[in-house]
Every structure is written in C-alpha cells, then in structure tokens.
C-alpha cells in the first residue's frame, strides 16, 4: 500500500520525464477513458443506482453522456488548443516571434463530490489529461459504490504512472492536502473549501473551487405557467434536488404563485404519478445523515407544505415537496437545501425580488422564467451569478462551450471544454528575438538622453489602426 507521498513522488517523476507532454499520449489516455466509459456502462449504472437510486435515464444523460461528450469535444479540439497562440506586436517587437505556449502545471489533485460522483470527478480529469498534467483523483467516500468502481477501473485503463486514485474520508483528505500539488480542483461545499484553500496557501498552490449556493429562480411578467412549471419541476427534482445548480428557491408574486401551484401539482403527478415513492424515476437521498439533515430543516421551517412532505427513513426517500409562506429568515433559507424542497417566497415586484436575491450570496446559477425579454435583461444586469439560464434550468451546464464555474461564495475558476484546458494549463509568454537591430535596442541603454526617450515612446506604443483604412 503506497503512502500519499510515494504516490505523489511517482507521479511527479513521471511528469518530469515529459511523458504527458506529447499530444499523442494525451489523446491515447483520453481514448482509454472513453473505453472505460463505454465498456463499463452497466457497472457504472449499477454503482449509481446503489449510491443514489439514480434512474437509468438520469445516470445516462447527466453522468455517462456528459463525460463522453466532454471526451469527444476534447479529443476533437485538443490539437487546436495546444497550438502556440501568436499575439499582436508593437513596433519594437515587430521582427520577433511572440506567442503564448500552453504548458502543463504538473500534478493536479481532483476532489470529487457525491451528487454526480462520476461526472464531477471525470470532467476535471479530462481537462487535466488534455492539458498534459498528471492527476490524483479523490472520489467522495459518501457515494461509496462509485468510489470503489473508480478506484478499480482507473488503474485498469489509464496509465498508472500518471494517474492515481486515493480513497478515504475527511482525515485521509486532510493528510493528502499536506502535500504539495501544482493545482487543486475541488467540487463540494463551502465549509470544506476553506480548509482546502488554507492548505493550498501554504504551498502557494492555485485552486479551482466549484461550490454551491442557493440558486434562485424568479418568475415575473408574461409567462406560460404550464411550461414554466414543467421545466422548473424537472430541474428542481432531478437527482431529487441534489444538484449544485438546482433551483433552490422560487420568488414570484402572489398571483403567479397561485397560478403556479396547480400547474406544479399536475406536473408532479405527470412526472412521478400520484405515488412518487413507487416511481422508478425518482432518486433517493444519498445517505441517512443527509436524509436527517433535510428532515430537520423541514421540521424547523415555518412554511406551509402544500405538496409532498412524505418521507421514508429506511429507503432515504423524501417526496417532491413544495412549501409556501416562506419568509426570508426561514430555516430553509439559511443554507443550500440540496434536497427536494421547493420553498416559494413572494415579492410583488421584480425590483423587490432582485433586491431579495442580492441580499444573498452570489449563487452558482440564477434562473428567470419570463416571456418578456425586458424582465430577463433587468435581472441579468442587476444581479451576478456563476451562470444564468432563462426559461429553463440546469441545461446551461451541459454545453461544453460555456464556462462552468461560480463567483463570490459559489467559487472561482471554471471548466468544461476549452475552459478546463486553460484552467489546468500555464499560459507561458514566449518572445524570440534576434541579434540584429541592436542599435534600436541602444535607445534603452544608459547614458540616457531626451532624444532616446522620445524614440522609445514612439516604438513601444500600441498603434491604433490606420485612420486611412
């Protein structure tokens, strides 16, 4: 059994040997990861079912397919991302070769969460491989079946010299963090993020934090309430609300709420039938501890349950639940819910709603349902969030060309597609000069004169485009 430092030393010396640098190696490893995904789909679906009772549909589109899409996208575009980027020059550097090289950082630590245990661990890995790094994966122990599966499959398919899986709980992770990495990529909660950032500061290690927050959802102006209800319910109760980008709470006027409730009721019945507990399409809460946390929250809430509320401790089941008359200081508004409770807060005007959400921390995602573009634009201009989606939920994170990341308390840094490649690369500025024009260089050498200075001002200024053109 290797110790953490032994694993790290082994990976570091592999990295130093330069093996991960050539494109061929990176492509080969990405293709291996692709094989891992396609050849083990059944086992993956099984593990996800054990961990979260994930229905096959959710596992396929939110875990397996997302990883495969990311792989396709990276494999197809890696070559162009790796090319040196030539930059515009000023007069003094006109004859030089000036470009930016994307270079790997070294050994990256990727810490995954339990809610999408495969996708949120492997998507950063794809970025790390594409950028030419070695990586240590630390899957979440809470999603135990996936943790075990990852530990079994990664060494089977990927180069064992460059990629390793480390398992364990809080203690082991703390010990792992004492080591020095070249980048730490963490997805999870704010509480743990503090520890990670403190540990990273000791070594001056750059960090990417993908955290959560309370993602607000606003409904204002003219809107097709049936469609809005469907999309809202789908994004909220996907994975039983255990998504970092799930709409956490809803803000709308009383009238909208009254129109929305029957639409929501109908939608939930359409989706999960009158007995959601028997529906094959509703996942379960990940662990007894999280189930208890959620039930406690519900108990402390002063809101009124108008839909759902049923639960079953043994199967970790909680029904899709909607609550009204929830105030801003309610228990459900204290922390990220991360479960199937949808509190509805009321604010009569859009301005009040925006003021309400701005009193909260910046969320990972912000949603607006409205057919009026003025409403959408107002919210966009007067708020901030990691990402934004109007008239739908969650779907913006499935696009690899959009950066996925938070701002403020919801994190910093971003990934997916090229964004991940850039996050896990170093952009090295390169300037190749020649020996000629030394006389021009003479302008900058002492002894200094007024003349030299004026010439220099002229040659180093960025020229605006010629006004004649």
């Amino acid at each position: 059994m290797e110790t953490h430092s032994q694993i790290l030393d082994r990976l570091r010396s592999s990295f130093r040997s330069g093996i991960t640098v050539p494109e061929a190696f990176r492509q080969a490893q990405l293709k291996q990861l692709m094989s891992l995904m396609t050849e083990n789909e059944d086992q993956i679906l099984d593990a996800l079912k054990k961990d979260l009772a994930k229905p096959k549909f959710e596992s396929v589109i939110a875990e397996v397919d997302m990883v495969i899409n990311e792989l396709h996208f990276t494999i197809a575009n890696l070559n162009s991302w790796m090319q040196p980027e030539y930059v515009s020059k000023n007069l003094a550097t006109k004859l030089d070769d000036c470009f930016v090289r994307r270079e790997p950082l070294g050994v990256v630590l990727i810490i995954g969460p339990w809610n999408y245990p495969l996708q949120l661990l492997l998507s950063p890995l794809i970025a790390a491989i594409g950028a030419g790094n070695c990586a240590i994966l630390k899957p979440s122990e809470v999603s135990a079946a996936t943790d075990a599966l990852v530990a079994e499959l990664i060494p089977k398919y990927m180069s064992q010299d460059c990629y390793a899986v480390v398992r364990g709980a809080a203690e082991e992770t703390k010990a792992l963090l004492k080591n020095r990495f070249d980048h730490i990529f963490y997805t999870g909660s704010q509480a743990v993020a503090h520890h990670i950032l403190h540990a990273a500061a000791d070594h001056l290690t750059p960090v990417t934090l993908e955290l959560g927050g309370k993602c607000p959802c606003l409904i204002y102006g003219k809107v097709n309430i049936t469609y809005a209800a469907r999309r809202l319910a789908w994004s909220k109760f996907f994975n039983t609300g255990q998504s970092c980008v799930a709409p956490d709470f809803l803000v709308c006027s009383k009238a909208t709420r009254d129109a929305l409730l029957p639409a929501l009721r109908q939608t939930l019945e359409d989706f999960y039938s009158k007995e959601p507990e028997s529906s094959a399409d509703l996942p379960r809460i990940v662990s007894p501890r999280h189930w208890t946390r959620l039930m406690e929250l519900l108990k402390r809430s002063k809101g009124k349950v108008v839909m759902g509320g049923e639960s079953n401790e043994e199967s970790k089941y909680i029904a899709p639940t909607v609550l009204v008359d929830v105030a801003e200081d309610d228990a459900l508004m204290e922390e990220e819910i991360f479960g199937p409770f949808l509190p509805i807060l009321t604010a009569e005007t859009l301005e009040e709603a925006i003021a309400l959400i701005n009193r909260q921390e910046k969320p990972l995602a912000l949603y607006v349902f409205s057919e009026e573009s003025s409403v959408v634009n107002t919210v966009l201009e007067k708020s901030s969030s990691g990402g934004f989606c109007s008239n739908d939920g969650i779907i913006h994170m499935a696009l690899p060309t959009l950066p996925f990341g938070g701002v403020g308390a919801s994190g910093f840094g971003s990934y997916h597609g090229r964004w991940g490649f850039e996050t896990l690369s170093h952009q090295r500025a390169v300037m190749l000069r020649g020996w000629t024009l030394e006389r021009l260089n003479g302008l900058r050498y002492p002894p200094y004169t007024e003349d030299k200075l004026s010439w220099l001002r002229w040659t180093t200024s960025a020229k605006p485009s010629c006004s004649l053109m």
Partner: protein
Amino acid sequence: MERQAVQRAREAFLSGRARAVEFRLQQLHGLKRMITENETEISTALKQDINRSQYDTPLLELIGIENEIKLAIGKLAEWAAPRSVERNLLTISDEVYVQPEPLGVVLIIGAWNYPWALTLLPLVGAIAAGNAAVVKPSELSECSSLLLRALLPRYLDKDLYPVITGGVSETQELLRHRFDHVFYTGSGSVGKIVMEAAARHLTPVTLELGGKSPCYIDKNCDIRVACRRITWGKFVNCGQTCIAPDFILCEPCIQGRVVECLRLTLLEFYGADPKCSPDYGRIINTHHFNRVMGLMEGYTPVIGGQSDASQRYIAPTVLKDVPPHSRLMQEEIFGPLLPIVAVSDMEDAIRFINEREKPLALYIFCSDKKAAKKMIEETSSGGVVVNDVMMHYTLSSLPFGGVGQSGMGRYHGKHTFDQLSHQRACLIRSLGMENVNLSRYPPQDRRRARRVRMALRAPLIDMSKRTFIWAVTATVIGFGLFVALMVILLIAAGLNCTCWYWRGFYNYW
C-alpha cells in the same frame, strides 16, 4: 479608517455607477491625465524613494502605464461585450454567450520597486472591468505612495478608488475585510500570508511574486550583444526588478569573455565610477542594503564590489565561479550582484534550472533556434525571452505572470480585464418549442432517452479530418452536378432558341 474606505467603496460599487462603459472610459481618461500632468512630481518622488534617474521613470513606468490606458480605452467596448459560443442541437435556437462582469471590490497591493507601474497597471484593468478598487501602495516607496494618495482622488471617483497608505499593520487590517479579488505584487513569503487571509473569505487572488530568474548564455551566440542586453536588464533600477536576470549560467570556457564584455558594457553605460552616473540607482533602504551586502560575504567579485552605506550605493558587481549552494544562490538577489555559475553544457543548465523552483522569467541566449526551442520545452517559467531580457513585459498582448512559487494568475492588456472580471455563462431560452422538451421529462422510456441524448451531443459539427474531407468532396460533387444541370438546361434552351431562330429564318426566306 480602512474599514470606512472599504465600506464606502462597496457601497459605491453597489450603486452601479462603475458599470456603465462610459463611466469606465471617463475614469481611464482621468487616470491618463493624472500621469501626463504630473510626470515631474512623479519623477521627483521616485528620485527620493529609490534614486531613479529622470529618464528611467518614464521609460520603466510611465510609458507603460500610458500605453495600457490607451489600449484599454480603445478596446474597452470590445472587451466588455458578450462573447458568443458554439451551441448544441438542444440550444440551436437559443442565445448562448459569455458575459464579462465586474467582480466587485478589488484590493490592489503594490510593490516598492516600480511603485507606479505595479500599482496602476492592475488598477487600469480593475477600472476597465467595472470594479471598485482599494489601492494599497507600498510604504517602502514612501514619497510615491503619499503622492499617489494625494493625486488619485483628484482625478478619479473618490469613493470607488480609495488609496490606503500605511505599513504592515494597516495591510493586515485591510486583509481582514472581505474583497472580491486580491491582486498582490511582492515576495513569496508575504504572498502566502495574503493568500491565507483571502482564504478566510474564499476570495480569489492574483499573486505576482518573484524568484531567481536564470539567464543561460550558450557558447554559440553573440556574447558581446548578449552581455549588453543582460547588463541593461540586470542593473536597471539597481537590480531591484522581479524579472531581472538573477544569475548567469554558462560554460567555463566562455566565462572569461562574458566577464570582459560585462565590464566593457558597464563602462559604456555608467562610466568608470557608477556612483557619479546620474543613471544608476540606489538600494531602497538600509535593511535591503545590508541584506544584499550580506549575500556577497566571503566572495571576491571580479567586477565592482564597492559600496557606500550612507548613500545605500552598491556598485554593479559581477562574481564568477559561484557555487550552487552559496547563499547568493539560495534567495532572490534583488540587487546589483550578478553571479556566474558554471555548467558543463545546455543539458546541465536545463537540469540546474529544473532542480529549482519555477522562476518568473527564463532568459536564453543562443543562436541555435532548435537548441533554444528544446530548452523552452524542457523547462517551465512564468515567461521566457530568447536573446534578450525583460522585453516580454513591454508587450501587453502577452500574459504576464508566474507559475508555481513565482505566482498565479496573469495580467497586462486584456489579460488584466479578464483576470478581474467574472465570465458569466448565459443561456437565453424561450418557453416555446416545448414539444422538443417533452422527451426529457419523466416517466422515461428508451425512445425518449435516445432523443435527448442526440440533442445534447456535442460538438454540433464534427470537426474530424475525415468528415471535413467528405464535406469538401460532397460539396465539389454537388457543385459539379449543379453546373452540369445548368449546362444541360442551357443547351436545351439554346437548341430551342436555335430552332426558333432557324424557323424564323426559314420563314423569312
């Protein structure tokens, strides 16, 4: 005092006035005026702080700042505009783009060696990105920091961009507050403290640190020109530059020639007695003077070595055959001492560099392009310049920043704007086309699942070579068929015409 300033800056930011592009442009114009109208005062302050010559100031600081401001003014509209991205099948009729947004209140901690450039360049980006900024110049360059505190409020919005002066305790007090980004330039040890403090609030940081920037001189190169460029870079600002070539690596056979060329160049630049040259600087304070003098202890320089504590003057000094384990080679020199360390060849130099922390800059003097390329590929550093030193700093299209212990993040030009913005992913959908969405709702079955999988697939357009060749071939064939069809039609029409023509002709006859 610090708390009030930070509070006011935050309230000013929340009022939303820093967001409008016109406002940002107005502030940038104000900043430009501040520099151009006060060049003399700034030069005087720098002379008092660090004995900077009146030419070095515009050369090393002011021209750079003015250029950055002009670039930001010219490009701001472009930088702040939404950036469209490629869509997949599901989002084909939606608006999908990335919108750069301000972060909020940025803390900028400047350094003392280039007190104006290293404080104002980040400020240009902060303003351009629509943020408020609390500016904390270094107390070691005291005259400059007091002058900045007097000038900035006269030209820029007082509440959005306060200047806080003070020492270690004031900085620590500032760091207790919550900022949306902290931009620090300085030493690695303080960098850790800054990152620790920022960690308490989960605040992202940009750290522009230092390190020992190696300078390798290959035996196949124009040693004379190389030494001129190195001498300039090393001894400007009396060696107190984060990207100054810290030490030289070369083979023993050229060491003598290198020393000779350095000696000749020093004579040309600063005369026989650099102490009398108006163009040669001084060490910032007694503490650093003693520190640098201490590094030299036990070694006899081949050039220079003289000093005058009363003036904090240290002559341009070169030392050869310096052992790798000496004190001189343990920490960043940040002074006018240039050690030469012997290596057996380029491979040895690469090994030497890789055994140490990643530096902020790497300099390679070599006439063989392939060899220089190899050295670049086998090492890592913030930036690299071949056959010169420091010039990558002057090109704002190049990202300027460190890696590993030399820092994290990058800036200059658009890079500062991006560093101090949040890239917000935006997907604008409509509530129409709900039928397409039906496939993704529960209860689920295979057919619906397949439709959804198709819609989410990326990339939309297959970029592989095979498909591209197929696409080109298909287009060519298609075009060819079209042309053939046109020809046939024309001939048919022509025949018809000809028939009519001849019929008419015959009729006439």
